[in-house]
């Protein structure tokens, strides 16, 4: 009996270990491919293809990006600004909404909660929204359009509501009210303090969404100086593929433009901050998913 148990456990662990190692490798592999290519000489990529280890080591990709750094830096600036402003503003609004919507003595909380939730069930679609933004609100080529649409989502408001409900006991709010604190004071002095971990989680979800946004730029921004970072990268990639194809089709030499390695270097520069921050912030996301899975 004992032996059977141990041998089945051994087999199970072995399978588990193998599957987990393989899946982790599969998740990591594409990143290694990009890092490696960004450090490879452009000609070597074209000749030998992409490899896990640079065949001919070179920093020319990064050098090309930083030879004319103004555009990248400007796109970085746009994304940094929209990320910070959007996250701060969105958090301010959503914490207030989450707090009010979980107050049991707020009579219309169910009505308003459903009004917010309903937008996930039915909507006007992309086109009427696009026309409203461009034709009626005249938001083309403004910073406002890069920030406004991403300020909040129903999912994050529900998440915030659940966080506050579990972090702030009703009695605390009750006793603060008896002491004469008004609703905003309770929010700013007590609720914000007690639900800091939840705010961090929602804030990180929001920041990630702003950082990775390319879609808003693609719809509303024609002025290249206002491109978000991801959309800038998207355009660079397409432009370089076009140049490379032109070169291949006509037999004309591309000169010394290292298209492939530059694309990869640019990808690393764009993703860098996320990869760098990831180890420190991922536990907040895990926490958010765990609490968000609770219905409410």
């Amino acid at each position, binding site marked *: 009996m004992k032996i059977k*148990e141990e041998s*089945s456990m051994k087999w*199970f*662990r072995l399978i*588990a270990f193998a*599957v*987990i190692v393989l*899946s*982790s490798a*599969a*998740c990591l592999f*594409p990143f290694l*491919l*990009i890092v490696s290519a960004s450090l490879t000489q452009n000609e070597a990529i*074209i000749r030998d*293809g992409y*490899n896990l280890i640079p065949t001919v080591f070179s920093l020319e990709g990064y050098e090309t990006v930083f030879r004319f750094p103004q555009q990248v830096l400007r796109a970085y600036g746009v994304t940094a600004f929209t990320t910070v402003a959007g996250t701060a503003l969105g958090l301010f*609004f959503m914490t*207030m*909404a989450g*707090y009010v919507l979980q*107050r049991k003595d707020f*009579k219309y909380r169910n009505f*308003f909660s459903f*009004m*917010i939730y309903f*937008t*996930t*069930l*039915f909507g*006007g*679609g*992309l*086109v*009427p*929204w696009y*026309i409203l933004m461009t*034709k009626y609100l005249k938001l083309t080529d403004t910073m406002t359009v890069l920030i406004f*649409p991403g300020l*909040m989502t129903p999912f994050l*408001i529900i998440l915030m509501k659940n966080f506050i409900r579990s972090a702030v006991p009703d009695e605390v709010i009750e006793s603060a009210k008896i002491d004469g604190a008004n*609703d905003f004071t309770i929010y700013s002095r007590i609720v914000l303090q007690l639900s800091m971990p939840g705010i961090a989680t929602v804030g990180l979800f929001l920041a990630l969404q702003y950082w*990775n946004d*390319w*879609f808003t730029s693609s719809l509303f921004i024609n002025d290249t100086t206002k491109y978000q970072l*991801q959309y800038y*990268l*998207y355009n660079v*990639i397409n432009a370089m593929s076009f140049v490379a194809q032109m070169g291949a089709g006509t037999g004309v030499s591309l000169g010394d433009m290292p298209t*492939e390695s530059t694309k990869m270097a640019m*990808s690393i520069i*764009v993703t860098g901050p*996320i990869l760098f921050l*990831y180890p420190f912030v*991922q536990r907040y*996301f*895990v926490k958010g*998913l*765990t609490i968000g899975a609770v*219905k409410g």
Partner: protein
Amino acid sequence: MFKKHGILKELVANRLMFLMLLPTLLFFLINSYTPMVGIYYAFTQFDFNTSLFNSQFVGLKNFEFLWKSGVLLKLTLNTIGYNIAFILLGNVLAIALAILLSELKTQWFKKTTQSIMFLPYFVSFVILSVIVYNVFNYESGFLNTTLAKFGAEPVDVYNTPWIWIFLIILFYLWKNLGYSMVIYLATITGISDEYYEAAKIDGANIFQRVWYITVPMLKTTFVMLLLFALGSIMKGQFDLFYQLVGNNGMLYNTTDILDTYVYRSLKVTFDIGMSTAAGLYQSLFGFILIMTVNYIIKKINSDYALF
């Protein structure tokens, strides 16, 4: 005129709370509710220079065209088909990974591999398109250079529509498995050790313990995620499809979904009436589906109802 105990009294008494909720309400009013008026475009021949209700009314012509050309049916089948694959494979594999990971005992190894598998979720879709290009492009992609090393023929992935069915599913899983795995892992961590101890004493081996304890315990989470996903089965993963396929017309037959079609009609052909119609069809069909699903769930087991 106003009732003393009605909404007005409530507004005055709780004015601060209403004020705090106001930005959120305004946001959804502008961003979500106002565009609903524009649904009317679906029934018009759009003209950018006239206002909404002065555009020429054409009735159901736009829908008729979409239906008769076969576009609508193809898009619907693609959208729903991919979503079903995403939901089923995504959940089953996430459960399997979560179970395997939870049975490993070395803490640092567990933490590290979980972090690695969650990582793709954080990467933008633009980077994903770079990755796919790295691996699958014809001239220098990792796949073809590796095939060449073994003397095999290169594969022209970007001109082979059927491969993309698998690639899109593969990269959906790559990006999202870690996310759902974390949710299931949290549920497994919450299962009391006593069940497992008791089963051990009764002589159940690890496979039996997983099958008779862990899997049933995950049912609630699974059903909840499943129903949530069913509710949005008409909404496609726009970022994924658009960044992987882009404007490569060769691949539309197998990869075009409602969301990419609407986006293209707006950005490329600027066919407002047609794309509004396609969008409205998607929204309405999705809405009816959710209502039906929710109604049926309520009949069977109201604990699982979405609302």
